[in-house]
């Protein structure tokens, strides 16, 4: 592709990121401070270019935006995209810096699920509720994903891709242990029990890490209106059965040596998947593409995919786009957002090329979803994932979810590594979260 066909990819542009947000280091902290006096200057420079729409994104959304350019030019001729692409962490740190300065936010910005509540509560994002065509557009989106964008009576973003939680299983390893999918996926307890049979006689590990099981369990069976860690009123709620079950079973996994003790995306994790040392994964459906395309293509035909154990419905992340409340180009930003969130062919293209599972239900009707996937032994995996996505209940997001996540993981580490009692660990996590939430409740 020639340069002319690419949006202006301005890596050196510090318009909205401040000086210090170049990498995810301490310099980022300095960036926020230094961004304050300068953000206005960067903003002023950008305002001098009315024919540019500033869009900020992280991989692989940046590539999808590049692919979108021809379509965008047919909608808004003469209005180009100025893409500011950063790595995932840097992207969100830069948005934080711009929100702190209250100046220099891009017109349209990608926001990952984990940052959605925090950014939506900032007042820096435009409420999309009253924009023309929203009702029709949101009706076509997977219900749970659009529900995640509704906060404090407003709608602050729209989803472009989602992560319905599914399981990935190594069929050959299950066969060797004379286990069926049904045995593995009937219930959470059955899943762990099947793991014991897998490991017997030095077989493969059930999971990469016991933490993965905890993450899957706490994401399922969430009370209606509640979030992962907070209830509908925003109060910390760790005293539910899903946390007790999650901690108890995670400890059982560790005590019985059922997990490989490797963190996701590490070298050992990737090699474990390639070499058949790990038998199952609980992850978002988007992971199927990664597994097939670059992580373990040589294992084609040996994997199967299914529901989460016990028929649990859960969501793993997702990408959203939001418009800056102060954008002088709100009309164009909305047009772009409608294109990204509402064009089924665009989302299908992103799914084909970048494994971004479409949030748009009309995209799910494409014959592409009915194809049998050789990597999954001829399963119609996409159709299965689509059906599961439609059944996921909405889960509220909270701006302190990342903090709660760290608190719960820290206590789980103590259970897994120091033998702490799970009940006590949950109590301690609840106490720490309550204290922090109290402090940060403004």
């Amino acid at each position, binding site marked *: 592709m020639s340069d002319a066909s690419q949006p202006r990819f301005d890596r050196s542009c510090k318009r909205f990121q401040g000086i210090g947000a170049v990498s*995810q280091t301490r310099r980022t902290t300095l960036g926020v*401070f*230094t961004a304050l006096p300068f953000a206005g200057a960067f903003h002023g420079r950008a305002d001098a270019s009315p024919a540019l729409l500033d869009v900020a994104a992280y991989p692989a959304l940046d590539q999808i935006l590049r692919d979108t350019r021809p379509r965008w030019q047919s909608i808004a001729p003469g209005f180009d995209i100025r893409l500011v692409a950063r790595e995932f962490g840097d992207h969100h740190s830069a948005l934080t810096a711009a*929100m702190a*300065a209250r100046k220099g936010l891009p017109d349209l910005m990608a926001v990952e699920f984990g940052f959605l509540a925090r950014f939506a509560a900032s007042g820096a994002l435009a409420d999309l509720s009253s924009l023309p065509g929203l009702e029709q557009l949101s009706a076509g989106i997977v219900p749970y994903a659009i529900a995640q964008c509704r906060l404090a009576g407003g709608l602050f973003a729209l989803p472009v891709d989602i992560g319905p939680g599914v399981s990935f299983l190594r069929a050959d390893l299950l066969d060797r242990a004379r286990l069926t999918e049904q045995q593995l996926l009937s219930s959470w307890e059955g899943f762990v029990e099947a793991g014991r049979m897998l490991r017997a006689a030095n077989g493969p590990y059930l999971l990469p890490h016991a933490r993965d099981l905890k993450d899957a369990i706490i994401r399922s069976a969430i009370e209606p209106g509640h979030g992962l860690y907070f209830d509908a009123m925003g109060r910390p709620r760790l005293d539910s059965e899903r946390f007790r079950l999650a901690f108890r079973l995670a400890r059982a996994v560790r005590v019985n040596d059922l997990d490989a003790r*490797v963190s996701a*995306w590490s070298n050992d994790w990737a090699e474990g998947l390639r070499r058949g040392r790990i038998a199952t994964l609980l992850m978002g459906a988007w992971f199927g593409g990664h597994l097939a395309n670059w992580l373990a293509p040589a294992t084609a035909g040996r994997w199967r995919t299914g529901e989460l154990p016990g028929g649990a419905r859960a969501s793993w992340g997702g990408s959203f786009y939001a418009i800056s409340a102060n954008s002088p180009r709100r009309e164009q930003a909305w047009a772009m957002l409608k294109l990204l969130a509402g064009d089924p062919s665009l989302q299908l293209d992103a799914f084909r090329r970048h494994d971004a599972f479409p949030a748009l239900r009309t995209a799910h009707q494409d014959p592409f979803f009915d194809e049998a996937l050789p990597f999954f032994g001829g399963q119609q995996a996409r159709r299965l994932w689509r059906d599961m996505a439609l059944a996921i209940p909405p889960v509220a997001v909270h701006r302190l979810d990342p*903090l709660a996540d760290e608190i719960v993981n*820290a206590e789980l580490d103590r259970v897994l*590594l120091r033998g702490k009692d799970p009940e006590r660990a949950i109590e301690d996590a609840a106490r720490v979260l309550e204290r922090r939430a109290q402090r940060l409740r403004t």
Partner: protein
Amino acid sequence: MTAQVQLVEPHAERVRPTLLDRLRGRDPAFAPWLFLAPFLVLFAVFGVYPIIFSLFMSLHDWDPVRGLGSARFVGLDNYWFVLSDEWFHQSLISTAWLAIASGIPQHLVAIPLACFIDSRLRRTRDLLAALYFLPYVTSTVAIAIMFTALLSRDFGMVNLLLEAVARIPLLGSLLPAGPIDWLNDPDRIRPAVSMVVFWRFVGFNTLLYLAALQGIPRELYEAARLDGASAWQRFWYVTLPMLRPVAFFAVTLSIIGGMQLFEEPFVLSGGRGGPDQAVMTTAIYLYRSAFEFSDFGAASAMSWILVLLMAVLSALVTKWLGNRGER
């Protein structure tokens, strides 16, 4: 004493220079400020302003995404919270552990190494100094990624090497039976991170000591030799006392660097501080508090407490090393 003669032009009028004159450099008194201006402006913006702002933030409750207008004055609340925070205590312990385990060996190795290079390898001294300095100028992230691969439990070179060593009779009994989980075991990740930090900075310290050794007058060694001093006595009674000013400087740098340790543990632990927060240094916790947990007030308070700790430690080092030479 000679008499001073002052030449005064009787009709010279003192004309006050205009601002334009000053900017054109026609006012000699103003010229130095002009030369200093680029530094002063940059220092004010990137040095002074962030410091003042962080002090301001440490007295406020502020979620940055809500804008500066949302900052609420809370007095010393952030400091009380941080001082009673279990995670902060844990982070201080982790920081101290890593700083000591990586810092002390740096100097214990760098001093003899510099002496050896200076006395025995004079011809290749510059080349060796450059090689030892290489880790210091290499990207920290690249180093940490490389060590992540080397320290991999199942496929890392370090464990493969240990496995090979374990096959040697007698040595095998000294090593653990299975592969060591360097990065996922809280008791192993600290030594692993310390090793990386040591590897990175030992060359820098060696270079400092090597430069200092070259400044020691050779006559002192000749005199000591004539007095019958052994090699060890020359090292102990000549070299070490003469190295004290540089040792003071290097140890102070190590303390400050150790207290600010961030990149190596951050990358080696995947940005989370490791299992059971074993390598979540105060700098990492500070960063995460601000950018992940939306608590800039506590993060700023932590940074000031850290500054205070560094000042106290530096003062102790000054008392221990810095003043000895004056006695």
